[in-house]
């Protein structure tokens, strides 16, 4: 009884603390600017969530540190860039339908192509180093070099400009609060991906087996489930999510370049360390913390923007080394 009351108080205190922290920047920021920054922060958080959730699930279930995730992210961006290039008429057309169609085709192409690349990577490289983190880091780092060089071979070494589908360009001015359209799209994509992942993980048997595997792989095998097939599937889904993140981020930042994965991989690792490895909800919460903090601090103290998330990560590691959420949540 007393324990449940304490737990409830603890939850209420945590929520109250989070709200206070969220509103804290209002001390130094005008409310309208605060709203614009908040939307930008949530949009950035959702994009980071797409990358981080893949890293988190792959580590949670397979115990694999996949440093090639950043390269898969870049491949997603380049596949999407190629679709946009060949269907540029639809990208720049003054038609919501054509803009949405080309965006959808780019998403499907990027996710399918990179998921298949993920299957090859898992079967050919990662499978050989299960259970050995040092080898995983070395071999996936090697795979990153190969994948990034392949991007240079296929698409060239230079930065390319990514075009925003016309419908997503520009902004809305809602009572003097500037809301960029594409940021809202990013928030919707992130929320949809989270909802679908949660639905699969919580409501389907396959998802339940994956969550069980995050807790105890050996037991899942001993219950008659082919964990290796599950590993391949999860790796493919993680790669697909990285691709979606890469495509969405390239439109966000208006460019693609071969090394783009490295920057976001660092953010993804910060996110999963804050949220908890193996937790999808943890990835979402961690990504929102990183996205919002980055935007607020970049406005208030620009020179500290890059460092503040590392500081949060260090604090979380000191207080709760396993991250905010338990694996499998």
């Amino acid at each position, binding site marked *: 009884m007393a324990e449940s009351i304490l737990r409830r108080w603890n939850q209420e205190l945590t929520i109250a603390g989070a709200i206070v922290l969220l509103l804290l920047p209002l001390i130094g920021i005008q409310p309208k600017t605060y709203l614009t920054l908040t939307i930008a922060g949530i949009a950035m958080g959702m994009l980071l969530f797409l990358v981080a959730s893949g890293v988190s699930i792959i580590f949670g279930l397979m115990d694999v540190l996949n440093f090639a995730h950043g390269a898969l992210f870049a491949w997603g961006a380049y596949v999407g860039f190629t679709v946009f290039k060949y269907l540029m008429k639809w990208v720049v057309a003054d038609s919501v339908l054509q803009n949405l169609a080309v965006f959808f085709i780019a998403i499907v192409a990027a996710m399918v192509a990179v998921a298949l690349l993920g299957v090859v990577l898992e079967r050919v490289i990662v499978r050989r180093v299960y259970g050995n983190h040092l080898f995983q880091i070395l071999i996936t780092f090697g795979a990153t070099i190969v994948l990034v060089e392949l991007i240079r071979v296929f698409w060239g070494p230079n930065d390319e400009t990514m075009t925003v589908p016309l419908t997503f360009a520009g902004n809305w001015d809602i009572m003097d609060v500037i809301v960029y359209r594409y940021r809202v799209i990013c928030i919707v994509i992130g929320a949809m991906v989270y909802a679908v992942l949660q639905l699969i993980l919580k409501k389907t048997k396959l998802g339940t087996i994956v969550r069980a595997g995050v*807790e105890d792989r050996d037991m899942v095998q001993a219950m008659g489930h082919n964990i290796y097939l599950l590993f391949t599937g999860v790796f493919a889904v993680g790669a697909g999510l990285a691709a979606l993140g890469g495509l969405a981020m390239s439109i966000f930042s208006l460019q693609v370049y071969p090394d783009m994965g490295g920057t976001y991989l660092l953010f993804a690792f910060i996110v999963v360390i804050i949220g908890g490895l193996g937790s999808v909800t943890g990835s979402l919460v961690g990504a929102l913390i990183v996205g919002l903090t980055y935007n607020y601090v970049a406005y208030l103290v620009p020179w500290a923007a890059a460092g503040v998330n590392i500081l949060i990560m260090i604090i979380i590691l000191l207080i709760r080394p396993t991250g905010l959420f338990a694996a499998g949540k």
Partner: protein
Amino acid sequence: MGEQGVDETILEVQGVHTFIGQHHILQGISFDAKADAVTVLIGRNGAGKSTALKTVIGLLPSSKGKIIYKGKEIQKNRPFEIARMGIGFVPENMGIFSELTVEENMRVAMLVENEATARRLDRTLEMFADLKKFWKAKAGNLSGGQKQMLAIARAIVNDTSLLLIDEPSKGLAPIIVDAVIDAINRIKEHSVVVLVEQNFYMASSVGDYFFILDDGMVAHAGHVEALIQDEALQSKYLGISEAEE
């Protein structure tokens, strides 16, 4: 079970060697499990009892020897293939998925969800009434005894012919141990059981045949009734003195 004769051997482990890292744990172990019986592997800590079960289910690879289940060699098969042949496994740490509910734990265990499984589930929940009571509760919040019940329930909800149970009495209160003994005696009616147990009371309450393991080898084997009578053997290999009994 109906087709199996009393002396039919369902599992044969022949000269099996298993390494964990550099350590040579099983050093040519041989034992078998007969139909309609509970076979108990007993021995001191580190004798290789848990390793023997993990080797049978395939979680640890054997480097030498044969494991024959229903006439088929299975030592090269992967754990999920072995489990699908009808071998259930309850590990020493119970292997409960603590973040999942009791219902979800059972669902993960069900390889096929059909009428036969539903009937077995009903039978299992009748045997372990607490699981029904806490059906929607997180498994991590169950008591030690309830977790053990859940671990066993998961292993018997499928069409299991052979059940490997590793130290089910470990850390449980005596009254719960009695409930587990009762459960194993009921499971015995449907499945062959290989039990690893250090608790002599439990081993002697449910066991039909015993194998005493010592340093990764079988030191003695026979009927449990004979072991109950042999105080010298109990003292030598199990550390049981007359005073303790």
